């Protein structure tokens, strides 16, 4: 009997997954542990490995389709085995969904979940009270006015519009009940001057195939002719649906920036000594990154600032009992935030080990959703990207985020003399509903003081 391969359930909140790419073809041999396909969930791009050995007999769910978890996506078996006929439940294409899909996503608000009791409650609460949000109204404007639901057109009229590569939805119908008849199309073509439009035969073929309205194009050719290049430009300019991951990021960050009044405080930390200490350690074969020190300093500082390690819905405040640090990692498709649990309890060596491991798996797309939820405070380090300073947007479910910029040499005045020091700017974004300026300043200075206190680090390593 061929064995069904199913869309895995990867996290508590995952109801469906998008099959992004098949890495095996029908007929390919499959060994246990071979990567069969890639999926994209709310939170990550993941590779799915085979539990079985055999031949990939049939692919049921093609690339780009989103299906509920546990749906059969393929069959593996012996060569020549018959495969049962099945239909894909509630299959919908991953692409071209537009507004419908974004509404779908917001039914499962991707709020950071399960980061201690309070956090979990907060998550639920926020989820419940979220109902009428501006962005849940049907949003992104369609490329052209959407057809009224009673769009009616005669077959001959439709054929003429199709042949001429014009969009019939903008034509006013004069037939019964506003039905567009052939005459409407031809008089529309006349008034708009279709006869004067100069289009190369290939461009016209391509426009028809791709459903591009020739009236919307500007010729780039010297002779005023619409050519293949113009159609290709129009295709490139067509709105493309965001990837699921991008959509989730967009929605969460927009939501956070809208509901939490952000304000920003910046300090410069003098890392001259810490950096040479780091290099000294490295020469002895013990390597730490600047990020490791920052994670440690932040975790230790948060213990004395519960308000910074909290969240609010505007009415209540939840203080988190744990310190779970999110570490933003840039990927090609977006950003993921793996979490270091109980970071305040970890030694510097633990932090180094876990951060290295999580970052590597994040880059390889191998984090599980559980590893990316429930942080209570986040650090975003753009140090390796050569930036002077930047501000970050608070992760939903938290009240502040620390933006860390590049370490660079600067002239600094010390004892009335100019000296060269290695400085690093850090900017804290805070939710003003919970955190006031003075608190933010004290918190940030406390982190800075730790980073600058070299005797502390000599004790900690």
């Amino acid at each position, binding site marked *: 009997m061929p064995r069904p391969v199913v869309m895995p359930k990867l996290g508590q909140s995952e109801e469906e997954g998008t099959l992004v790419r098949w890495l095996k073809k029908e007929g390919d041999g499959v060994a246990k542990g071979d990567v069969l396909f890639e999926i994209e969930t709310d939170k990550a791009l993941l590779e799915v490995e085979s539990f079985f050995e055999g031949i990939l007999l049939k692919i049921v769910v093609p690339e780009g389709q989103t299906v509920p978890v546990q749906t059969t996506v393929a069959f593996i078996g012996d060569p020549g085995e018959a495969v049962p006929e099945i239909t894909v439940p509630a299959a919908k294409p991953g692409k071209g969904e537009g507004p419908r899909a974004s509404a779908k996503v917001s039914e499962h608000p991707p709020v950071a979940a399960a980061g201690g009791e309070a956090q979990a409650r907060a998550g639920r609460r926020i989820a419940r009270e979220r109902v009428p949000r501006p962005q849940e109204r049907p949003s992104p404007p369609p490329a052209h006015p959407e057809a009224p639901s009673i769009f009616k057109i005669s077959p001959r009229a439709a054929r003429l519009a199709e042949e001429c590569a014009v969009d019939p939805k903008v034509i006013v119908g004069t037939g019964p009940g506003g039905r567009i008849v052939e005459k409407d199309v031809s008089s529309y073509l006349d008034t708009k001057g279709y006869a004067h439009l100069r289009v*190369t*035969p*290939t*461009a016209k*073929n*391509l426009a028809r*195939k791709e459903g591009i309205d020739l009236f919307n194009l500007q010729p780039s050719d*010297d002779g005023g002719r619409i*050519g*293949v290049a113009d159609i290709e430009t129009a295709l490139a300019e067509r709105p493309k649906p965001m990837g699921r991951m991008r959509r989730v990021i967009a929605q969460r960050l927009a939501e956070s920036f809208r509901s939490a009044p952000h304000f920003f405080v910046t300090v410069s930390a003098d890392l001259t000594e810490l950096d040479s200490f780091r290099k000294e350690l490295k020469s002895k074969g013990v390597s730490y990154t600047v990020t490791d020190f920052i994670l440690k300093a932040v975790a230790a500082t948060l213990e004395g600032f519960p308000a910074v390690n909290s969240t609010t819905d505007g009415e209540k405040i939840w203080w988190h009992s744990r310190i779970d640090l999110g570490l933003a990692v840039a990927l090609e498709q977006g950003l993921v935030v793996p979490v270091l649990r109980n970071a305040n309890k970890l030694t510097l060596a633990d932090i180094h080990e876990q951060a290295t491991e999580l970052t590597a798996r994040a880059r390889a797309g191998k984090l599980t959703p559980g590893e990316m939820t429930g942080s209570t405070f986040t650090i975003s380090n753009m140090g390796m990207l050569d930036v002077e300073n930047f501000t970050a947007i608070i992760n939903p479910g938290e009240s502040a985020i620390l933006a860390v910029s590049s370490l660079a040499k600067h002239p600094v005045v010390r004892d009335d003399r100019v000296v060269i020091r290695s400085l690093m700017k850090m900017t804290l974004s805070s939710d003003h509903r919970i955190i006031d300026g003075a608190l933010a300043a004290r918190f940030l200075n406390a982190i800075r003081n730790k980073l600058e206190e070299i005797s502390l680090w000599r004790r900690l390593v």
Partner: protein
Amino acid sequence: MEAFGVVVIGAGPGGYPAAIRAAQLGASVALVEKEDLGGTCLNWGCIPTKCLISSSDLYARVKSAGTMGLKVEGASFDYAAMSDRKDQVVRTLRNGVKQLLKANVVKVFQGTASFQGRNRILVSPEAASAASSSEPVVIGADKTIIATGTSSAMPAFLPRHARVLESRAFLSLKSLPSSVLVLGGGVIGCEFACMLGQLGARVTVVELLEDILWGLDADVRRELRRHMEKTLGVRILTGGTLEDVSADERRVRGRVGTEWVEADVLLAAFGRKSTAEQLQLENAGLGVDERGFIAVDEYGRTQVATIYAVGDVTGGPFLAHAATSQGLVAAENACRRHLRRNETCVASCIFTSPEIGTVGLSEQEAQHQGRKIKTGKFMLGALGKALAIGEPMGFVKWVADAETDQLLGAHAIGPHATGLIAEAAVAIRAELTAAELARTVHAHPTLAEAWMEAAHALRDEPIHTIPERTRAKAGDQ
């Protein structure tokens, strides 16, 4: 200092038309040329080679005239006279260019140009042509168009000897060598090889790459190679280098792999080099790319806003008509506000026997770009006209996009293929579809009908070929 709106450097097919167009657009124009008007193309390239090839071709046809029912006995040729005729044609054309420049009020400076600054150009008369006895002059230039082309270069590994020639020196020969070793199976090498083969010389072509005319459609290459080897008796050695070359009073010889080859004369038909280094570009703030050519954008502009470059000196495609088209674009862009792009659809013609014409993508290139394509081929032997003129050889082939039906490339080999390709170039530039081409009425009996037939074949609706399926059955009977 005399100053001009536009100064054009080099009077080849890129430069002189640019000068004329700029003058027509109202600019005051100077044209600087260090040798002869018409450049490589007119004096040592396209024109003289085509003169010799026309003579050799006619000779070959006369010799085979018996097949057409003609009796020609004792046909022979006088190579010196062929060469003189060639020189006469070149003189006529060169004079024509001179008249055109005069009529368009282009001031011609004889001498070598180099930049003194971005808008100052030094013209030094050639030492050799001291007859002109003129002094170096500096002229001012608002805009400059560089069209200095390439020059023939003798590869360093070849001995300097009277029996070792590059194409320009070869064209000055007044007698035909009885055997020739052609080094390089590119366009120039193959054209010379065919010409020499038709005249009865023993020819050996040595090409480093896997095949002659590498980069051309594979079907076309196969057809040409077969003809050169079978009909013209040309030996073609590919995939190896010529080593240990030596020359003495009697012959020139060299080794390809383990085999020694020898001949009266060696023709080095490769290794043209850029002329940019003479221009002292650094004085104008310009540089050259790693091959020594001047980089330009799609409007023919160099990195310096007032300086344009066209033709061979920009690094390809090394075709006279491409140089001309770019020259006109640069002149227009230099004189007008509205910018025009360089044309991208450029046919290339090879005057071998049989002739070759190609334009657009080859099957291999289209596949390489990841396009889904379909092809349609038509053998000229099935055309009434090809049989009537006694040349039923070769084929034409279309490459089209399988999804949009767009004509992407055309390849022709056979009689008059170099002229036939013009229709395909128009069709491809106009973004015509195979369906449009197939529906275009082609006059009968002509060789051009082949394009229509090949377009029918591409659409699986061939009229004058038996489709594969039926052919198999017909063979059974």
